[in-house]
């Protein structure tokens, strides 16, 4: 069994065609994890007992001739800010060390109903705050393409697990690019659905008006399979929407797809882009043009304010969502401290501390209007830019990250430098629209990803173009 060639789709076909069993696939993955993960550190916990149990059940069903769900037996990795009942969920923080989830996240329930297999929980920047996975309280994850480099973040463990063939696909989260940016740096596909498409119930919140589930996989077809399984309304997340996705999500209508116009926002092709990213964008655009797609230059004039908007709104929301972690609730050893500020001081690392204090500041009397309300207003302008652009074009093309994977420690001394990593992904979260990062094919060197950004609930457009692109470059 060659894990690097295996996708969710070919796994499902191989399983049904009895080329291998689900148990073999799981065991093969754990073998790879034992061999390679000590160097990569993608996983925080392994769930080997549960995984082999479910795989065994799937094999039994198959032997009986039962119909299998598309994700039955599929070996997945789950970011450690999702709750899986009975297992730890640290969110990469010391403050949650010893916490065991008492229920399943909605998306976990959905995947369990298809009998997907969870290999383990993956590493992340503490509370998903970061762009390099260096902020994890449990040590950094390394990029499988070069172990001296970061995998991106905050879903760095999930991206590294997929890139290192330590899982077929993975769930992450994407609040400002945390799913797409690590995918770009690790050379895998990273996807953020429309805000409201997937329930966040049971996922440890960071910024509630921005958080969405992220999907990391080897192909856009695999992304569509996973997305179909987890999308939908959930009464436990009031922001989730009952949208029915048509079959063009899984089987794109190639002919009508080719008529779509792709916009290129000039604000995304600025001087700050690294040469290899620029060259990668040229390559991808040429490849897409060769496939018959029309390109059109557009303008998203408020792009340059997106980082500032985000680093006011996100800390404000994070300071509220993280207030529940007081060292008593969700703690491994709850006790009443003599000094209530001590457990939070010791439990949170530098980045959450920075953002909680910043959030407390921008929400405080006297500064609320100048920072928080102002940022919300500029957020409207960022969103309106997209609304305008989508009157002219169907999909928007942009780089995912301004650079390829950087060295561990290279930017960690300056939080602002790390914040700039998300310059091209943040606007999408502010506007609540879907986007996918796809590795540029046919080039050497460190991976580079391009983004396709779509209209609200038009995931089928961006995943469909991605599929045409991937099949042409095979």
């Amino acid at each position: 069994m060659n894990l690097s060639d295996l996708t969710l789709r070919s796994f499902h076909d191989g399983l049904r065609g009895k080329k291998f069993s689900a148990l073999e696939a799981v065991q093969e993955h754990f073998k790879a994890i034992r061999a390679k993960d000590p160097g990569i550190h993608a996983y925080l916990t392994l769930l080997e007992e549960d995984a082999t149990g479910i795989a065994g059940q799937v094999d039994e069903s198959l032997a009986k001739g039962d119909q299998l769900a598309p994700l039955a037996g599929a070996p997945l990795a789950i970011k450690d800010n999702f709750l899986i009942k009975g297992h730890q969920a640290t969110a990469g923080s010391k403050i949650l060390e010893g916490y065991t989830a008492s229920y399943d996240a909605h998306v976990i329930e959905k995947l369990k109903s298809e009998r997907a297999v969870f290999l383990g929980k993956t590493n992340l920047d503490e509370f998903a705050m970061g762009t390099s996975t260096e902020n994890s309280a449990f040590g950094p994850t390394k990029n499988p393409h070069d172990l001296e480099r970061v995998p991106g973040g905050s879903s760095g463990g999930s991206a590294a697990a997929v890139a290192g063939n330590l899982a077929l696909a993975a769930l992450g989260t994407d609040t400002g690019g945390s799913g797409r940016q690590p995918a770009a740096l690790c050379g895998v596909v990273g996807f953020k659905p429309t805000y409201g498409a997937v329930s966040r119930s049971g996922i440890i919140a960071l910024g509630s008006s921005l958080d969405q589930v992220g999907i990391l996989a080897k192909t856009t077809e695999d992304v569509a399979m996973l997305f179909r399984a987890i999308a939908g309304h959930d009464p436990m997340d009031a922001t989730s929407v009952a949208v029915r996705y048509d079959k063009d999500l899984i089987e794109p209508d190639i002919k009508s797809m080719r008529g779509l116009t792709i916009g290129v926002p000039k604000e995304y092709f600025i001087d700050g882009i690294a040469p290899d990213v620029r060259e990668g964008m040229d390559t991808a655009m040429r490849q897409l043009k060769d496939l018959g797609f029309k390109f059109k230059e557009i303008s998203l004039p408020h792009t340059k304010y997106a980082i500032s908007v985000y680093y006011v709104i996100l800390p404000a929301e994070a300071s509220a969502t993280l207030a529940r972690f007081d060292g008593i609730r969700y703690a491994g050893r709850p006790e009443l401290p003599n000094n209530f500020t001590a457990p939070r001081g010791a439990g949170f690392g530098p980045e959450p501390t920075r953002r909680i204090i910043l959030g407390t500041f921008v929400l405080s009397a006297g500064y609320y209007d100048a920072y928080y309300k102002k940022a919300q207003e500029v957020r409207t302008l960022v969103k309106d830019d997209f609304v305008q652009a989508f009157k002219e074009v169907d999909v928007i093309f942009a780089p995912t990250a301004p650079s390829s994977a950087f060295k561990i420690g290279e930017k960690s001394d300056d939080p602002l430098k790390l914040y700039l990593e998300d310059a091209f992904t943040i606007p999408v979260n502010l506007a609540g629209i879907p986007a996918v990062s796809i590795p540029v094919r046919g080039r050497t060197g460190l991976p580079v990803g391009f983004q396709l950004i779509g209209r609200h609930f038009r995931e089928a457009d961006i995943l469909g173009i991605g599929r045409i692109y991937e099949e042409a470059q095979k």
Partner: protein
Amino acid sequence: MPDSPITKETLEYLAKLASIELHPEMEARLLKDLQNILAYVSELQAVDTSGVQPMNGGTELLNVFREDAASANTNRGHGKEQFPATEKGFLKIPPVFK
């Protein structure tokens, strides 16, 4: 940065409001970082937003209602098994009065 809205005193006050104990060796670095970040985001002040409605959430503003009825699907009691010590169904914590 003498004209930054965050000074050592405001930082200490904010830490108190946020219930975070700051380690003295971290405080100077944190102050510098926060001043830099605030200087960066203050570019927003220059944006003309007259007549622009603030975007309060990630979605269209709709009220979400549910039936006012009891639901069997609650998570009641599920947190208990992860508590470090229990006795006869009660949760045990260290003594409050010594």
